[in-house]
């Protein structure tokens, strides 16, 4: 393999549910440091791809490699520890926990403790807890969530909940952050703010981002490259400008509307 190994390589991934083929041989690479936009009409297979990357779904064939190593032999709970973090299309927070505790769970994969040590507050457990709290404190203040740190997430406005999900994902210390429609349900100003935030996540925290989004304005303004899916196949790939001009992409989106 040449010197510039991609951060992520998705190779010929196929996923079927009974009769439905949700992904039909999708391949693309993502370079470290890039924000890669993943677009496509409803049902194109974007979330399905994310679920393969999280090992919640197992592809029928194909391979997924992070920094050259296949992730397909890993259980879902061993994905965060290699640096793949994510948010969910329908906010999937721990509703009854506080903002801080949600973010602390994000650090689970990056820390070690035993139940006995935790129950007896042995020195190692206390140290781990202190370090975790410090890390989470940094992330919450970076995201402007400090003032609500003690609030149960269930009662917070939707936009804030999405931010908490981001905090939780960052607490896993990802190399690659998967964002599934982070702009969904946000208003115009919030989307603008989100765009800046995603850039800062990449620039200031050195996290590469794979971004699924229907909000074209957002994707086209912040993505380095874009992959377009339709009916489980890759339609186009290139710079935002190239993909926007692509006749197949235009047809997929206009066809959607015309139908």
């Amino acid at each position, binding site marked *: 393999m040449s010197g510039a190994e991609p951060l992520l390589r998705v190779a010929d991934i196929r996923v079927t549910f009974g009769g439905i083929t949700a992904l039909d041989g999708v391949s693309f690479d993502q370079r470290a440091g890039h924000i890669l936009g993943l677009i496509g009409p409803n049902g194109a297979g974007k979330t399905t791809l994310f679920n393969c990357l999280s090992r919640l779904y197992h592809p029928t064939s194909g391979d997924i490699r992070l920094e050259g190593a296949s992730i397909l032999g890993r259980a*879902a*709970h061993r994905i965060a520890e290699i640096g793949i973090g994510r948010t969910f299309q329908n906010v999937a*927070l721990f509703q009854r926990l506080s903002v801080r505790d949600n973010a602390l*769970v994000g650090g689970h994969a990056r820390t070690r403790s035993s139940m006995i040590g*935790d129950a007896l507050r042995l020195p190692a457990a206390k140290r781990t807890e202190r370090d975790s709290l410090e890390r989470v404190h940094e992330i919450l203040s970076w995201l402007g969530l400090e003032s609500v740190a003690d609030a149960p997430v*269930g*009662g917070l406005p939707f936009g804030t909940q999405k931010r908490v999900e981001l905090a939780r994902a960052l607490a896993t210390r990802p190399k690659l952050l998967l964002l599934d429609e982070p702009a969904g349900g946000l208003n115009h100003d919030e989307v603008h703010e989100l765009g800046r935030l995603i850039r800062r996540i990449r620039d200031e925290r050195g996290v590469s981002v794979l971004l699924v989004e229907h909000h074209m304005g957002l994707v086209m303004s912040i993505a380095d490259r874009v992959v377009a899916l339709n009916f489980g196949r890759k339609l186009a790939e290139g710079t935002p400008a190239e993909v926007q001009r692509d006749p197949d992409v235009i047809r997929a989106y206009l066809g959607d509307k015309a139908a």
Partner: protein
Amino acid sequence: MTIEHSAEILPSREAAPAREAQPRVRGAAGSAWFGIAVVVALAVAPLFLKNFVTFQLTMALVYAIAILGLNLLTGISGQFSLGHGAFYAVGAYSAAILMESAGLGYAWTLPVAGVVCFVAGFLFGLPALRLEGVYLALATFALAVATPQFLKLGPLEHWTGGVQGVIVTKPDPPFGLPMSQDQWLFYFTLAVGLLLYWAARNLVHSRSGRALLAIRDNPIAARSMGVNTALYKSLAFGVSAAYTGVAGALGAIVVQFVAPDSFTFALSVSLFVGLVVGGVGWLPGALAGGAFVMFIPNLAEHVSKGLSGAVYGVLLILIIYAAPGGVGGLARSLGARFSQPGRRP
């Protein structure tokens, strides 16, 4: 392909209606003082009570410990059990057999009972991983029904005493302390209970405890954050069973007797009722739950001998109506009111 989890994989809970975030600090300090007051009241109570009442209070503490264990399972990790009477029984028999057949000191039987029940609970929790909600409740129900029969089995009779059970020697207070045996057992149980409560609280506020809470609230998201959900759910079963087993061991020592018919399905149901009355997910509620399990049936009996079951039932329904979240729910809403004077009508 395999789908590890059912369709649209995420339980898409609607965002709950906006609720103001509440400053917790004053409420927390208030509840700490309240807790200290309760412990002090408990500590002096035996000085003023007859031995029999002290014994009853001790049993309320024993049930509270068992319920605390059940709460770790149901309130914290989100798994149901209608069979914790089985772990209580295993703990009780472990203590009785170790004391009477092996000559072990009574205090040493508690950790052993805890370990035995941890292993039993963990092993039961492993296959139970495939079961959710009502199916898990059903499996634990089977456990509760089967256990008393195992205790009667012929081959085990040499240790278990068969249907006769085992009589346990009542320990004397150590170091010649000037108190009755009942008083001593009360303080011993109180100390064990406080230690176990402290550990449970630590656990809930730690990395492991948060993993359990995360599983309860959203297992798929928990996995994606690195939580080995299968392992933690089984561990929760083990820890929960260990607590209930220690309670069973204490119960055997306090009652000085174990027999299969002390540990019928009714015990499992009682513990479950105590859990709900105390408040699922609220650890201090175990104390209220234990008191309910110990005293309410007596009270009902007192009100009407013939209709004690009906009186018990009506009391239970009244409590559930008046305090849907159990005592814990009540405490929480009171705490909210005190920490925000004037904000609520």
